């Protein structure tokens, strides 16, 4: 479904991605792990065109490297950035409604469904989204991207800085997305929810993929964990 081949990216003169290769199958949940600064976020940003990509990115057989972000999104690729970019002046409901790409062709996710799933959002449905807590904002951004019916969703550090109870809730939401048949690329620093939810794990180091395997294999491989993950 998604094939990334020899992907390079630069911030100014620094070479951040140094030939990233990986692929994802339909319905697969893949975790992209690694320490801060190894290029995990840059990988998803390059796929969305937010950082200019060099190399090949194919989505459902089509080359998408370098397309404007709205065209990539319309091909069925959803992206939830790490800074929880909610629209603060719009209401919670309006945030969700803006996730819909085409109002004449409603998708499988409904505004009411998310409001039912997250009573906190329902309570504030008509208040400006700027007043939400960090966890609520995270629920809202993921839900908003789902409103656009993506076939693959890339979620960048959804649990960063959140309380354990909220992390658990986000884990449940991600499992729910997987059950709906949506492929997920989950960018995380910690192993916690990634290890329970993912079918496959990628570990990054120095702008490259340095490990690829199942969560069980990563658990068993202490050397990889020591070298690339543990602080």
């Amino acid at each position, binding site marked *: 479904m998604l094939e990334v081949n020899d992907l390079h990216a630069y911030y100014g003169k620094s070479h951040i991605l140094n030939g990233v290769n990986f692929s994802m199958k339909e319905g697969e949940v893949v975790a992209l792990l690694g320490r801060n600064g190894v290029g995990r976020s840059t990988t998803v940003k390059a796929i969305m065109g937010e950082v200019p990509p060099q190399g090949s990115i194919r989505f459902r057989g089509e080359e998408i490297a370098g397309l404007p972000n709205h065209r990539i999104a319309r091909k069925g690729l959803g992206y939830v950035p790490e800074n929880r970019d909610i629209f603060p*002046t719009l209401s919670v409901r309006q945030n969700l409604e*803006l996730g819909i790409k085409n109002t004449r062709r409603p998708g499988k996710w409904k505004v009411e469904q998310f409001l039912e799933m997250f009573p906190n959002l329902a309570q504030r449905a008509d208040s400006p989204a700027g007043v939400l807590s960090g966890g609520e904002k995270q629920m809202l951004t993921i839900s908003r991207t789902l409103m656009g019916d993506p076939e693959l969703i890339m979620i960048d550090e959804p649990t960063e800085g959140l309380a354990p109870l909220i992390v658990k809730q986000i884990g449940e939401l991600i499992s729910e997305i997987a059950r709906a048949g949506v492929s997920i690329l989950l960018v995380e620093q910690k192993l916690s929810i990634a290890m329970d939810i993912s079918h496959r794990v990628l570990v990054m180091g120095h702008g490259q993929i340095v490990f690829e395997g199942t969560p069980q294999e990563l658990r068993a491989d202490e050397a990889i964990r020591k070298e690339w993950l543990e602080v």
Partner: protein
Amino acid sequence: MLEIIVFSTLNGLLYGLLLFMLSSGLTLIFSMMGVLNFAHASFYMLGAYFAYALGLHVGFWPALLLSPLLVAGLGAVVERFGLRRVHEHGHVAELLFTFGLAYVIDETVHLLWGSIPVSYTAPEYLRAPLFSLFGTDYSIYRGVTMMIAVLMFVALWYLLRKTRVGMMIRAALTHGAMVGHLGHNVPRLFMGVFAFGCALAALAGVIGGPLLSTEPGMAQALGPVVFVVVVVGGMGSLLGAFYASLLIGLVQTFFVALDVSIGDLLNAVGFGVDPYGEVTGITLASIAPMTPFILLVLILIFRPRGLMGELEP
């Protein structure tokens, strides 16, 4: 005295609403794209000249509608083939681009219509009095302009608050990239907002031309005041631009109308100075054109984010 208050209030409101027509477009464009469009007042001037030229052939009312549409099309072209390319080279390049564009438009107007005012006037029947108060007439045309300005304000509010496009614009004001990630064409939205902003400026020109004067200096006369409105209101705040427009409109109009000198004011609070002195003899009317800029300087010193703004300029 009552006559001065009533008419100055009416005229000040009208002038303020015209200022708002210009500043609302400018502030929308600024907050979405980060571009302070120096050519904005030139689109206002084009609005007046196009309405004058079209009006000779199709009549006043059709021209009133056609001119803003034409300027909107021109604005869209400028954004799509000019600004969007220059944008890649940063804000300074954009600023210089709009600066140059303003001169190009101003000189083109000089070339096409000459350097003296053209006789762009409202139809005879609109110049008749709507009502007379204390022996002074208030023309139907002024009433009509006021109505158009208020309608435009309501339409803008409805567009931004109640429509899906308006929601997209408000979202893109702060998080443009995210709106794109959701699958919405943000560059096209920018072009639309730029064109719409130009159309509002043109509408101000169309209805303001017969009131003020349709001449090649009109862009340079009003342009700086519009910038003052945007800064005083707060960069990127529409509501701020609205308050600042009315404030500046009213203050300037009242200063012009009041036959009072600085000395008179000082004497009124018990200073006892010579009301005909070199400085104290200066009338408020002669200070009027300066008031927006005095306000600008004071705002930048004491409240740099403006009346309602969140950003510092």
